[in-house]
């Protein structure tokens, strides 16, 4: 392992990483989401996760009420229902408490079926685990 990779692994040991999968429920703008949290390459369990969402162009006003996520069936998995106001790009905010305190922001494009990563820094949260 070269020095850069070693340093990177040390960082990954401290900084949580997240992946999000959302499926439309059939009700307008309501999605069931599964969040995978990793830390240092391992599932992050026991975290207290709150999921919120902002529209990037009006981050403090056009937001949805945050929802508590519940642990899923797989290690590091958490599940939450997101009730958005409209289709389009949303900045999903994952507030973590418990074994680690952090705030992760993920950008997703929501359509009538589900969500897929959009621009706005997906590099970091989605390509390192």
């Amino acid at each position, binding site marked *: 392992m070269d020095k850069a990779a070693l*340093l990177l692994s040390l960082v990954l040991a401290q900084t949580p990483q997240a992946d999000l999968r959302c499926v439309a429920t059939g009700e307008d703008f309501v999605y069931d989401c599964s969040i995978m949290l990793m830390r240092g390459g391992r599932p992050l369990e026991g975290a207290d996760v*709150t999921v919120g969402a902002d529209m990037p162009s009006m981050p403090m006003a056009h937001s949805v*009420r945050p929802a508590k996520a519940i642990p899923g069936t797989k290690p590091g998995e958490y599940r939450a229902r997101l009730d958005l106001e409209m289709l389009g790009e949303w900045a999903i905010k994952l507030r973590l408490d418990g074994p680690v305190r952090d*705030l992760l*922001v993920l950008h997703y494009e929501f359509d009538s079926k589900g969500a897929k990563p959009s621009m*706005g820094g997906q590099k970091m949260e989605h390509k390192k685990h």
Partner: protein
Amino acid sequence: MDDYALGVLTNIGLFSFIALSAYLLLIAGEMSFGQQAFFGVGAYAGGILTALYGWPLPLAALAAMALGALAQFLVALPTLRLRGLYFAMATLAAAEMARILFELLHWRRSIDGELAGPDGTQGFRGIRWIFEHGIEPLHYLGIVGVLLALVLGLFVFVERSKLGATLRGIGQDPELAASVGIDVQRVKLGLAAAAGALAALGGVLYAHHNTYIEPRNFDIMLGVHSLAYALIGGLGTAFGPLLGVLLDIGVLESTRVFHGYRMIVFGGLVAVLLVFRPRGLLDERMVLWIRQRFS
């Protein structure tokens, strides 16, 4: 207090800084659609200093405020020669230029083996100072509240001083103010610098509250809202913009039943309000009435 209430109250505090910066220019008769640019300057500068260079947040906030003041001073030098609609358009153009500059800003440094810092349209992640220093959301709300109280206290002090009367005089009739020996241009330049510093302070606090910023956060929507707060709340006192923010966030939060249409409902309410109260709820007449009643 739950996370949701803390988040809403913190947002009210953060919006108040940019609302007060717009108000500062409004009382001197200038309508700026560009305060979001200086909010962004503060957010980026503060984030860079804490996340990339390890500065403590208070010091980074002071530096960001100085940069915000300088930025708005430099923008004001040419634009304050314009009046009314032309000044408003020039500030909007300057703000859009700033947003595009944020999109072009790539200031990446290796921090503990990982590249961090502004990455153009990809945004700027990892502004984690408050998490690294164990500051809880309630504590952060307290910091925002204390800073806002200090700023409001300063506004009240200035508005009751000769300078406050001078500013309102310039706002009502700049030619008359100049005829009695007031250097209108110099006062307005100083005011612009103060407004830039205030917006930048809000930006620093916003960036550290959110941990992530991107150029789109600082587009025209934020500028329109910052003006709307002052115009809704009223131009008679510095508490007007604060009332505007409270009403804005309060109405937006209480109209969630309208889902995506609530912005339309909100816009309609603002339009109706401004027809009947063009200088806002707490306009000069209302403030005078309150003072007479309670003094």
